[in-house]
């Protein structure tokens, strides 16, 4: 039983990462109706800069880099909208292109070396389970960001504008809400959240230039597993996938572990559970 508990706890720490990546994904899906495939690439860029510079300055510069990259995506979004392209798949494909470009830029600028920084060396022993503080830190950061994001969405004027733009863009426009500008903000938020996730991964396990798209996929799977209707479900989805992965790695065939996010995506899409209400006037 102790072993089972240990796997679950490890899974929760792992899932916090997925949950963190799921936050910008579900935010973009809820408010703009599209997927920003570059979220994992923002994480990669932040980690690359953070690993190079190091310390608090490195973290801040990493976040700034991720923010700049996401502003590129926001600009692409605005340009597409202005050009009259309202098809969300086009925006998603643009973000895919940006993700590939960021991966190439990281490879060209930093080479193929891995980005890893030493986190905290301390080990806490709780009820016989040895825990590095980095895990609880990741979980706490994820929960704090989730709380902040929920407060922003449901307790502020900006949140109301975001939700109004999502539910009825034309009506929101008529009510004086700058819909495109507000939605562009979402991409910038995605850059910040992705950047934070990247920095936490940098100090947890590390990553290399190939990580971008797989991180995006993990975040996407987490954001849809319990329905994509709000960020809290996305975070919870991340925790659930993390626990499933840890239990699978511990008890099952390890080869199954990597398939879990893809399996979740296929199952959710196959069963038609991808927040279909979003398109029928469902209020997020």
């Amino acid at each position, binding site marked *: 039983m102790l072993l089972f508990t240990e796997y679950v706890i490890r899974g929760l720490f792992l899932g916090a990462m997925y949950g963190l990546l799921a936050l910008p994904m579900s935010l973009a899906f809820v408010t703009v109706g599209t997927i920003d495939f570059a979220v994992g690439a923002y994480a990669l860029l932040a980690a690359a800069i953070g690993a190079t510079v190091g310390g608090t300055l490195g973290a801040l510069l990493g976040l700034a880099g991720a923010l700049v990259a996401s502003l590129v995506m926001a600009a692409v979004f605005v340009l597409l909208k202005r050009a009259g392209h309202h098809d969300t798949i086009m925006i998603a494909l643009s973000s895919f292109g940006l993700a590939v470009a960021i991966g190439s830029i990281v490879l060209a600028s930093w080479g193929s070396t*891995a980005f890893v920084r030493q986190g905290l060396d301390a*080990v806490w022993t709780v009820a016989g389970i040895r825990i590095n503080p980095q895990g609880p830190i990741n979980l706490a950061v994820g929960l704090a960001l989730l709380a902040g994001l929920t407060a922003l969405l449901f307790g502020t004027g900006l949140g109301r504008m975001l939700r109004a733009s999502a539910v009825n863009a034309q009506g929101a426009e008529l009510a004086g809400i700058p819909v495109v500008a507000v939605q562009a903000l979402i991409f910038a938020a995605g850059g910040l959240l992705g950047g934070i996730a990247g920095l936490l991964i940098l100090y*947890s396990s*590390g990553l290399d230039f190939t990580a971008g798209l797989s991180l995006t996929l993990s975040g996407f799977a987490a954001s849809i597993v319990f329905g994509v209707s709000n960020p809290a479900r996305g975070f919870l989805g991340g925790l659930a996938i993390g626990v499933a992965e*840890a239990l699978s790695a511990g008890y099952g065939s*390890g080869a199954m572990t990597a398939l879990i996010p893809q399996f979740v995506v296929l199952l959710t899409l196959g069963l038609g559970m991808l927040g279909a209400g979003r398109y029928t006037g469902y209020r997020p």
Partner: protein
Amino acid sequence: MTSNQTTSVTRRLAICACLGLTLAWPSFAQVAPLKIGALLSMSGPAAVFGIPERDAITVALEDLNSQGGVNGRPVQVIFYDDRTDAAEAGRGVNQLVSRDQVVAIIGAGTGGNVLAAGPIAMRLKVPLLAPVGTIAATDKKNAFLPWVFRVAPSDAVNIRTILTDAAKDGNKRIGVFYQEDAYGKTGVDVAEQLAQSLGIQVVGSAPAPYTATDLTAQAIKLREANAQAIFMQVSVASLGAGFVKAARQVGLNVPIYGSSGLAQKSFVDGVGAGAEGLRVLSIGNLVYDPSPGEKKLSDLLRAAGKVPQGWGELVGTNGLVAAIAAAKSIKGEITGQSMRDAMENLCGLEAYARGKGCWTKDDHDGWREDALVFTEIANGRLRTRK
């Protein structure tokens, strides 16, 4: 002296200098270069090795050409990026042979790509100098085996060397952590095949994808299997570093052996202080404790503004040196066929790396145990174990 006179003298001097150079280097100026292809993974996941291979081949080519190339004939290397993609590797062989007329190809970038490129190389009659450890690349069942010559120690040699060392220290229960691909799976399969002959037992194995962000579950699984030593068949530095950190965190305090894929600076930097004594098998020790040949390559790289990374540079230049040595030994016309035939008779070949390459008609694995060194991490460096 007036300005016009000065210009005139300068002109005459320049003309004399040009004539002098042309007369001094008749062979390099007039002979068409010998073309060798380099089909490497310079983008995609295997760029980790492909880029150092490319950099080393570039600087070594200049060095070898300055020593006279192939009997006075300059050598030209034409690079092609296989993008870590098997289909692209096949296209690369076609293009390098049909368009660029190369007589040998260093590559492809990964074991899988060699398997894809091999049949095409056989059809076009050009030998591949494979800088890979993948056992299947020189499997006797391959119809294209006569056209593939390995320029790195095979994974079977690497794994046997590691497990022999672990067994020698009395570690009979081995846990295997491996990356989820053909390279990783080979580690488990070969370890299980060798177990009985080495008197060891593989008590557990735990795979992980390249981009896993937490490896504590895998570490717990091997801890619960009561492994006395861990063998990591991993070439992705962040994955290896992540597992070592996870192992220490969950209390898996047993000796850890890293496969030669982990003999990289970024792995050593990544594992940090918790990895003192960790053993990593290495193809040479280019970065931290170079042999005289490796030191020469390291200096060439640094002079070109490159930072030596690890074994990629060594296996890449093994390929180049072998191709030039084969070409030098050919009396008549140098073609793909004559290069292949010459390679089967190359032995005692010394490149920048340690060990001596030797191929025969029946054995296309050129480099063996003498190319390997055991290293231990000490003070953030890979120290060669004496």
